[in-house]
Structure formats: C-alpha cells, structure tokens
C-alpha cells in the first residue's frame, strides 16, 4: 500500500543523516517512538519529536534504553509501527528486549548510530564496531535483519525497507548507521507519498476462538492479532507453542527456535540488498558498508588508476549476510578486501564465506575517524599481487 501522506515531507532538503533517518521513519509510517538521549543519535528523536505532534505520532522520552526498547515492543502489539534510536551503550542495554521482540516476533525498528567503543568510548566520533553485536547481541539463537546506509539520502530511503522488512518477517530490524553518516549534511530528496510503498501490519482474519498466535502455514510467519481486538491471545518470552503458551521441552524449543532462525536464514536471498560495481572480471573485490563505502570509493579509483581490476560490493543490508554471492565470487577472484572502522568484524564473515579459497584482507581503522583512502588503495594493490 502507499504510505500515509501525513508523514511525508516531500521536497528537496538539506539534512543530516540523523534528521533524514527520522524523516524516513515518519515517511515509512512510524507513529510511535520511545527513546533516551545518547550522542550521536539524539537528533533522530529531536526531529521526530518536532514533527510527531503534527502527524498523529506519539513520542515519549523514557527513563533509559531498557524502557525505550520495552515500550516500542509493547506499542507494536497495538499494530502501530514503532521505533527506538540509540548508540553503542544504549544498544547494549536494549539487547534484552531485542531478544524479547525476536522471540515474540514483534515488528519494530532499532536505530544504532554507531560511535567508537567499547564502553563510553568515543561518544562524538565514528565507529563501526557494533556490527557483530547487531548480529549476536542478545542471548540465544535468533537471526536478525540489519541495514547500513552510506549517506543521509540512503538513511531516508532505507528506513522504508527497514519498516517493511520488520512487518514482512515479524522481527526487530536494526538500522546500523554510523556517526559520520548521522552527522553528515547533504541533499536529501523526499519523494511524493504515492512513490513510497509500505507493508502494513498483516492482521489475522481468523475468528478469535480459532486463532492461534504462533500457528504458521507454510511461510513461517504467523498471523498477527493486535491487543484490544478481542483475540485474547497470550505471548511470552518463554519458549512457547503455537498457542503462545509456555512449553518447557526440547521438542518445542527445536520447533520454535528453528523457525525463528529459518524464517530469515532461508529467505536471505530475498532479503539481501547490496550494490555492485565492477565486480564482473575483477581480481579484487571490496566488501564494504556505511561511511567506509564512500571513503573506499577513492581508494578504488586510485587502485584502478594503477591498472588493478577491482570491484566493490556495498552492503545495504548486512544481516542476513549475502553469503551466496560472496561464495560465488570466492571462486573467481584473487582476494577480498574489507575496510571497516573496527578491528575486524565483517571481514570474519567474508572469510567464512570465502572458505579458504581466497584471502579476506582486513583494512582496519580503530575508530574516531575514517580510513585514509591511500591505505585502502595499498591494500587493494597488495591483494592484487
């Protein structure tokens, strides 16, 4: 369906990534946000709190990130598209209820504007070191969807994908920005509302007395009932059967957890979103995401001037990882190069998919700044040898 025009600020704007992200959420139909201030993400909720009263949304500044995350999970059960926004330390606090959202299969979006870590780290400076936390942060087995914009424009555009994927797969979706993208101001074009397709909450049509909240028919995604519609359903963070009732057994655990993982793992190809440039016939392929993708462009240009055939895969959706594509390429190229603002996270995933056929070379930046393009060029040249 087309989005609610009330939330769409159509036109050309000059916005930073945080504001663009907030606009993206509102354009995608988000009408409930709970948040707690944390640098460098706060501008997202500032933008939203400025505009929400005029578009029928409710924003509440909660007492902490634990509460913010719990509140958006609660709100989502009324059918409203909900979101929270944070950065590293707050992201850590949210993990408990991200797990709850995954277990209860609650659509919602969590924005993490990444800064340098661990702990308080570099509050005002860039990092990309929460990528594995996004994948594995909450305890237990589950799969997650995580997106990475490289610009304010993409922070706007990918927000629609984030909310739509959350609805489609009934899962929390993580929006992994970084401080650079968040605080970078650029032109952002917001389209007409009739150009924005959104996935509405898929409400069950079953009769209340026949409805089972976690019954699945083939596609692994159960039908949703919202609170207050007379379904009198139960949902829990405990391992549960299709009625939503707790069942403490190996069998129930196996059925439930396998489905939670498989609904994303087996749809990885469908979910995957990346941009390729010059990959066919390349000797070296860069795998990159977020702000680093833009810095890497110069490194690639410099390497191409030296005659190296280098391609790039820019991940717009990092989780689930485009495993199939990386495996394919591993048989055809000499090496992968992975620049990232951490001490090696996505490179491990590339290495796993390359399965020893070709090396995956990390170009690390420890955070607080972005790569020097020459370092990326040098890594490409080295890899091409």
């Amino acid at each position: 369906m087309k989005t609610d025009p009330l939330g769409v600020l159509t036109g050309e704007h000059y916005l930073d990534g945080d504001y663009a992200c907030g606009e993206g959420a509102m354009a995608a139909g988000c009408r409930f946000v709970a948040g707690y201030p944390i640098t460098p993400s706060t501008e997202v909720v500032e933008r939203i709190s400025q505009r929400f009263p005029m578009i029928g949304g409710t924003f509440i500044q909660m007492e902490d990130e634990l509460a913010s995350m719990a509140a958006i999970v609660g709100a989502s059960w009324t059918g409203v598209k909900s979101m929270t926004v944070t950065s590293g330390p707050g992201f850590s606090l949210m993990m408990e209820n991200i797990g709850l959202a995954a277990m209860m299969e609650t659509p919602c979006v969590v924005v993490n504007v990444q800064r340098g870590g661990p702990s308080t780290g570099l509050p005002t400076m860039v990092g990309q070191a929460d990528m594995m936390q996004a994948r594995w942060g909450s305890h237990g087995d589950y799969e997650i969807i995580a997106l990475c914009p490289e610009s304010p424009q993409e922070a706007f555009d990918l927000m629609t994908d984030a909310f739509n994927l959350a609805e489609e797969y009934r899962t929390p979706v993580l929006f992994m920005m970084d401080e650079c993208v968040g605080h970078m101001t650029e032109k952002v074009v917001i389209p007409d509302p009739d150009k924005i397709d959104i996935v509405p909450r898929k409400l069950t049509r079953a009769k209340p007395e026949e409805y089972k909240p976690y019954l699945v028919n083939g596609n692994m995604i159960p039908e949703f009932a919202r609170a207050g519609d007379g379904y009198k359903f139960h949902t829990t963070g405990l391992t549960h059967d299709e009625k939503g009732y707790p069942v403490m057994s190996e069998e129930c655990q196996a059925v439930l957890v396998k489905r939670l993982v498989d609904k994303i793992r087996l749809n990885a190809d469908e979910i995957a979103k990346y941009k390729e440039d010059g990959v066919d016939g390349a000797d070296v392929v860069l795998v990159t995401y977020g702000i680093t993708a833009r810095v890497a462009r110069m490194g690639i240009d410099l390497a191409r001037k030296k005659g190296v055939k280098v391609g790039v895969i820019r991940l717009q959706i990092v989780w689930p990882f485009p495993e199939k594509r990386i495996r394919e390429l591993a048989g055809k190229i000499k090496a992968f190069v992975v620049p990232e603002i951490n001490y090696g996270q996505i490179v491990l995933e590339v290495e796993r998919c390359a399965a020893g056929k070709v090396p995956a070379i990390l170009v690390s930046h420890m955070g607080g700044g972005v790569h020097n393009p020459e370092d990326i060029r040098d890594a490409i040249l080295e890899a091409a040898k």
Partner: protein
Amino acid sequence: MSKVIERTIDATEHPISPYIRMDRMPHIWCPTCGIGTVVKCYATALDESGIDINKVSIVSGIGCTGRTAGYMNLDGFHTTHGRAVPFATGLKLGRPELLVTVFSGDGDLVGIGGNHFIHAARRNIDLLVILINNFIYGMTGGQNAPTTPITAKTSTMPFGNFERPFNIPHLAASCGASYVARYTSLHVRRMTKAFKEALSRKGFRFIEIVTPCSTLYARLNKLGTGLNLINYYEKSSEIRNGVDTRDIDISFQDKIICGKFIDEERPTFLDMMHDHYKRTLGDRYVPMSNEGGMIRE
C-alpha cells in the same frame, strides 16, 4: 455429620472460568501461595465492573507473579524481568483506549524494575499496577528482595537481612501515583473493592497485596505454613485508610498497615500531552486516535 453434596460438577462452572485460561490449569503456583487469590479478586473486580474485557490487556514481568499474564484469558504479555511497566506504557500509548493492568512481583517491580516504576508514577501513565509482595524472590529460590524485612532470612542473607526494605506505597505516593492502597491476600473483599475502584480511576494506580510464600519465605524463617502466614495477616494487619504513607513500613512479623492511602485524580500523561499540544500548536496538532496509530490498508 451432614452429607457431602453429591452432584457431579463441571470445573467450567466456576465463575472465574471466562477470565482464566482453563486449558492451562492447574497453575504452577505452590500450595498456599497467595497469587491465585489476587487473580480471583481481580477477575471478580473485572466482572463486577462490567468492563469490555476485549479492551483489557495484562502485562507481567518475570517471576512467580510474572506467570499471571499467561493464566488470565485477556490479551496477555509475559515480558522480560522488570520491564512490564515500560512494555505496558508502550501498549497504552500505542492504543490509548486499552485498559492496561500490570501484575508484578516485588523483585520485578521495585528491584530490577524500580526505575521504570518511579518514572511511570511520575508521568502518571494510565496503568493499574498490582504488586504481589511476598518479601522474597520466589521463582529463583528465596533470595533477598528489596522488600525483605530487616532480620528476615533469605537464601542470600542466611544470617538475616540487614538492608532496609522499600515502603512501596510511600514510594508510589511520593512519585505522584493517583491511587495507592495496600491489603493482604486475606482481605479478599477490600482488595476486590480496591481493584474495582482503581479500574474506574485514571492515571497510575498502585495496589500492593502482601501474599504468603510458604515454600521459601515461611520455610527459611521458620514461620510454619502459608496458613500460619495468613493467620499472621489476620492478627497483625490494621486498616487505616488515609494514613500518611511515611508511617507504613513493614517490619519482620510486625504490623501491616492496610487501607487506601491516596485517591486523587490527576491529569495523566496523555491528558497532559493532549492539553499541552492543543494549547501550543492549536489546529496544527494531530493527536493519535484513541484507537491507536496503526496505519490500515
């Protein structure tokens, strides 16, 4: 001795049946645990209030009391430890027409969830919060709680508790709760009346029910059975409506002051928000509808 009634009865004839998930009975609560009594009184209050139960949601956290959401035949959310109140806050703000009740134990509500509790009371979020206080962590095996009276023994204070416990009605009152009451699980009529009254009020309504935990609290403190604890409530509880909440601390096996302490209407979070935006934004303000902010096809 008169003859026992010999009619075969169907368990579904029990008047609580429409409010309980009968397919989940028996519940997991220990013999003499008071939670079941509180659930029965809450169901009776709902029944007598004539509320549309399709619009009633129940949220609970973790622990013995956390299981309540799973046993009541309402939209029920069994959430994470301590987070029932913020979860319920989202639920209420997401669809303001819902009537949201939080069932929470003492460790859940004011131990791990203490910060959420005081802020929800401060904001006067429209929630009915029912605290089931048994002075101990039951589900995990009898550890010290923020409500354990001084000298009472727990599995992590084997030589007796030396930490000062919370006086929770006072905490709620001082944070601005609009309705505050305390009873024991023996006070079935007063408790039911308080639930009914609180269901008809708005804002952050807090009712503490002191309940027996014979499996851990009574055993670790050599207080006998749950029946002995109930007898202690009978002897030591005192109804003092309107008393200053500063004076209602509970000491070990000492007096339990019960009653309704606060009943004041105050504008809720949503009232304040609507009024404020109407005043400051005028016609530009588009409030989320009472039915919620869901965008339909």
